[in-house]
């Protein structure tokens, strides 16, 4: 390619735009919806209910160990659908490119989007590209929306946790946040920490197949704000307390090492390929069985349980520490790491 950077011209809507779209995206993402280049994609409706979600991705840096902004934008939106038990049907994607973005970088991102879609078996049905002047964006921003079909009779939600329920996390926590942090800080810690970015819809459907769906209260993916924030949200929506055991929470040694060094708490670091499952106690083993049979759920663990409101008199999350003490896991108001997704 002779011009090696994105120019304002590429966003003009004219020939340059057409070429950019064809060259980078249509060639890779072609599917029955997108290739028609209509003003909107028409997706056939099935019975049941639709889950519908949107998210914008502004992660910095755009490439990080274990992923990049492209795969993240696909996984993130698939996961938001999956948390409602929905099977993803189609995604839309809006790209905002900053003038001067290297074509080589755009190509890498486009390739990664395409790979992520193929692996997840989900198509991008509608897409749009805009270019903003140098300095008005930061390389590339992506918005994705998604629709998914929710199976009949499936009702999940953060308000459904009840005292006695068991809290499960599907694997190591804090990987994504730690990966971004180390990529950004230029600190090297020996072992490279990879983002856990991955689509979770197959994992969710495996759990729903194994365990009667009315016994499962909710799935939730602990992205920004991490596990601590999600547990607090569940406690508040359900008006219950949650108690977890420090020793039960799976955290990679490298991740706790980085946190130790930088004074962060892995419970607050973002995840992009993990979910929290709350399930009725008697059926928790079924969920664990389903998870441990999957690559993405191999390190799943029961980390705690749901309790009645206790001495504090309002919903709180507490943790039994390794040495036998207790502490409150609060909702953090500050954002320790901006632009992690």
């Amino acid at each position, binding site marked *: 390619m002779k011009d090696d950077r994105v120019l304002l011209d590429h966003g003009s809507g004219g020939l340059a735009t057409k070429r950019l779209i064809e060259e980078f995206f249509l060639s890779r993402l072609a599917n029955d919806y997108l290739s028609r280049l209509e003003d909107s994609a028409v997706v056939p409706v099935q019975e049941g209910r639709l889950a519908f979600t949107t998210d914008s991705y502004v992660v910095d840096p755009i490439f990080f160990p274990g992923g990049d902004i492209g795969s993240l934008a696909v996984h993130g939106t698939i996961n938001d659908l999956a948390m409602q038990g929905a099977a993803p049907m189609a995604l839309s994607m809006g790209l905002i490119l900053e003038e001067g973005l290297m074509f080589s970088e755009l190509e890498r991102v486009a390739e990664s989007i395409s790979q992520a879609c193929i692996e997840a078996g989900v198509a991008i049905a509608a897409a749009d590209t805009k270019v903003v002047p140098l300095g008005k964006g930061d390389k590339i921003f992506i918005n994705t929306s998604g629709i998914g079909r929710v199976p009949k009779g499936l009702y999940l939600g953060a308000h459904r946790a009840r005292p006695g329920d068991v809290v499960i996390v599907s694997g190591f926590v804090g990987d994504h946040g730690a990966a971004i942090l180390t990529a950004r800080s230029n600190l090297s810690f020996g072992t490279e920490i990879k983002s856990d970015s991955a689509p979770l819809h197959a994992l969710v459907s495996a759990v729903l197949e194994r365990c009667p769906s009315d016994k499962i209260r909710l799935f939730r993916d602990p992205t920004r704000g991490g596990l601590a924030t999600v547990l607090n949200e569940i406690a508040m929506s359900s008006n219950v307390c949650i108690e977890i055991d420090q020793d039960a929470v799976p955290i990679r040694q490298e991740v*706790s090492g980085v946190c*130790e060094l930088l004074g962060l708490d892995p419970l607050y670091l973002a995840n992009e390929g993990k979910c929290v499952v709350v399930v009725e106690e008697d059926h928790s083993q079924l969920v664990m069985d389903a998870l441990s049979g999957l690559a993405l759920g191999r390190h799943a663990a029961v980390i705690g349980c749901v309790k009645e409101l*206790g001495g504090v*008199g309002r919903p709180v999350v507490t943790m039994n520490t*390794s040495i036998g003490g207790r502490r*409150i896991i609060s909702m953090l*108001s500050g954002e320790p790491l901006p632009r992690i997704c």
Partner: protein
Amino acid sequence: MGNDRFMDKQAVQSLIEEIRRLAQRPMRFMEVCGTHTMSIFRHGIRTLLPKEIELVSGPGCPVCVTPVGQIDQMINLSLIPGVAVATFGDMLRVPGSKGSLAEARARGGQVEVVYSPVDALMLAKDQPNGTICFLGIGFETTTPSVAATILQARENRIRNFCVYSTHKLMPPALDALMAEPDLDIDGLLCPGHVSTIIGTQAYGPISEKYGLPCVVAGFEPLDILLGVYMLVRQVVDGRCQVENAYERAVSAQGNERARRVTEAVFEPVGSRWRGLGFIDASGLALREEFGELDARCRFELKEIDIPDPKGCRCSRIIKGIETPGACPLFSNVCTPLHPVGPCMVSSEGTCAAYYKYGGILEEKIR
């Protein structure tokens, strides 16, 4: 997770049992240092201790004891054309009387975040057309590396580098604090890292003067509990000595070499502390021969005296007289996102610890 050697649950349990057995009357100990405060919360140590034992947090966070006037001074420095201040990230959001360094940066102030004083010197080398002013802040532990950097700057004749020193000394502050009439404590849990430099010897005079048990402790749960245990023991035995619960890192003499580097560059001067006021010989200023590298000389800075923000109880919290729960602004007006006082921003500030770890609720989850 963490270092299991120091987390050994069984060892913790037996220490707790011993403490429980010994502590037959209420005792109040002050953990001088913010790192202790954080670790105590993080591991839920207070929920393990018997009700008789109260741990209160002291003035051991360098950011929290820096007075508003000096924070304003740092902001003013960042706004001088051609000057960039280089600072540890902790300082960024500490509110001065007219906003923080972060806000100054948004208004065009030059602020660079660095991880060490040497990084700041490197910046100066890389940007020969501007002046880099490093904000020297911290106790005995951090000062030697700043002093070494200043020596390096002089040796390499880096002229576009200087240091604004708000460095402070721990023992004089403890002395002043112990003289406070409102303060009622039975012993001091002394900071491990400062003590690696000053040695346990440094606490001798205070212990003697105020009849106060002092124990130097490390930061792992077992270290802290051992420290508490040794304090309880002293109280029960009616002793008041300086003891060492952190022998693997701290000696009686401390690190003389590090002290010599500091002494070569800095000299003790009277210094203002938030909460504690002016204390003789409690701060460190660059010696006259380093005048060129001293931001105070280079920019002819005068001390600015500004009262603490209205309603903020930091000054009482730093002294361990009140806990954050007593501050009417805590967690409604004052949060880590919108801090009113430094105790809420600094990663080792007492209010930040209480906020982060739900400290005021701790009593109710025992």
